[in-house]
């Protein structure tokens, strides 16, 4: 009996045998419980509002007029937005100055700007989990921003809650968001230095949240010289990349909390976008062309553009960082780019 009993124990005693699995499950269950408890402790009313922000922006149908202001410059735009047949459709029409409009249907964007001709952008490839990560609980916004529900307000005729997001470090800006109560739609926002100067305002002055928006509201009406900017996306039948490819270069540093987002394949090099769930920056690494770009920093409201040149394997590259981050962050990111070898797409470039 003893031998038989011992034999049974020996048969079952393997590292991943039947007896090991329950222990593993218990450990996993414990870890999940601890993680959920930690999350629940962090959760506050502001976090709950933020969870529905991304979904509300994309899935809510609405039309109206909003203003965007930075410094002394103000622009107002008319917008129609809907989620139709499984894709986001949006049309923005400039209300001040020259005529111009931007129409987005799914991943296809056509932009007609005053005196700029028509620029077409398509095939920006969501690089995997990020598009969903914005609304996912996995995106720990609270780690990078201190979020508080600071009050209520009325914007463009709708009741809103006000969420303050104070940056926890100097590598990002602070935000204040006004979210419509019934849908969670962002109807007003301020971006600024932590506790300080407001760099840009966005606000609806006229808004109607409605599903009844005719197709004609999503057609391009402006005429202009057409400039098509064709990006190299995947060929038909080709799978989308599961992670952003930094072909031939890498980023030595970026602020914690920023993860790869949408990855387009620009025509002469590489571009990768990063976001912390609220702010985003894009890094472009391209062999220098006949057009010599100036190097240095430029600020447009909350947007920083930092350009620098880099030489690798006898090829000069232009590194450009564009994002809603402080100039110092953009500089540090740009300075950390290392080109290991010439990107394949640049091999044929002069």
């Amino acid at each position, binding site marked *: 009996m003893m031998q038989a009993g011992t034999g049974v124990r020996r048969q079952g005693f393997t590292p991943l045998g039947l007896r090991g699995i329950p222990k593993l499950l218990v450990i996993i269950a414990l870890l999940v419980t601890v993680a959920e408890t930690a999350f629940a402790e962090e959760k506050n009313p502001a976090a709950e509002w933020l969870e529905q922000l991304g979904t509300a922006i994309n899935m809510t149908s609405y039309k109206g007029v*909003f203003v965007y202001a930075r*410094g002394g410059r103000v622009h107002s735009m008319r917008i129609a937005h809907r989620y139709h047949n499984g894709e986001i459709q949006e049309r*923005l029409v400039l209300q001040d100055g020259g005529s111009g409009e931007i129409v987005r249907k799914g991943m296809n964007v056509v932009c007609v700007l005053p005196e700029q001709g028509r620029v077409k952008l398509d095939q920006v490839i969501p690089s995997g989990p990020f598009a969903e990560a914005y609304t996912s609980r996995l995106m720990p916004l609270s780690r990078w921003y201190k979020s508080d529900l600071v009050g209520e307000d009325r914007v463009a005729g709708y009741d809103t809650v006000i969420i303050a997001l104070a940056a926890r470090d*100097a590598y990002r800006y602070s935000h204040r968001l006004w979210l419509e109560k019934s849908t969670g739609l962002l109807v007003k926002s301020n971006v600024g230095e932590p506790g300080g100067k407001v760099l840009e305002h*966005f606000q609806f002055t006229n808004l109607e949240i409605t599903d009844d928006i005719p197709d004609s509201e999503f057609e391009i009406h402006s005429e202009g010289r057409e400039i098509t900017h064709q990006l190299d996306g995947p060929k038909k039948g080709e799978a989308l990349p599961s992670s952003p490819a930094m072909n031939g270069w890498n980023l030595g540093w970026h602020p914690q909390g920023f993860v790869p987002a949408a990855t387009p394949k620009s025509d002469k090099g590489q571009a990768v976008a990063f*976001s912390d769930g609220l702010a985003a920056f894009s890094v472009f690494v391209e062999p220098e062309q006949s057009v010599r770009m100036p190097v240095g920093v430029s600020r*447009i409201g909350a*947007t920083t553009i930092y350009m620098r040149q880099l030489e690798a394997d006898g090829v000069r590259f232009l590194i450009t960082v564009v994002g809603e981050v402080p100039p110092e962050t953009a500089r540090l990111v740009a300075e950390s780019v290392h080109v290991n070898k010439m990107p394949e797409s640049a091999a044929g470039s002069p």
Partner: protein
Amino acid sequence: MDDRLRETLSAMMDDEADELSVRRLLSHGSPDDVCQQWQRWQQVRDLMHDGRSPMEGIDVSAGVRAVLEGRTVDPVRKKREVHKTPVRWQWPAAAMAVGALFIGFGAGAGWEYIGVVPASSVAVSEPAGVPETDTTHEVALQGLDKEQWGYMNRYLLEHAQHNSVGAGQGSVGYARLVSANDSGH
């Protein structure tokens, strides 16, 4: 509504419009356009006046003037100015304020050398192996030629699309692009 009427409307907001201009504006054929524009600007003005700047207590003029004249800013004085800031800013904002002293406000004012301060000591992570640079060019968007602006536009447009698709920023990214275009031209 043409630019001249828009100019008059803008002057009216500042209480600087002359009587003739106001009469011309009032007799404009599309009063609705004028009303809407007036309403929008009023809302924007209210919006912008609401946002109080905590930089109010800091005198940055001396520091900016010193940088423009190529002089070194007295670090003691610089420190004292930073210490005038309310306690609630603490270091992240203090670092921003010092950065503002060097960088100056209102980017795009011209080409110039500006100092760049090190990152704040409260940063969650520090970059490793980043080469030290002590000067950064400020690029004036107005100074870009047509081809350069074409490049810049593409970067801004792609970034706007990243914001719209990946970062859930909706139309704000495109509004930034439009605003940037206005800077260039």
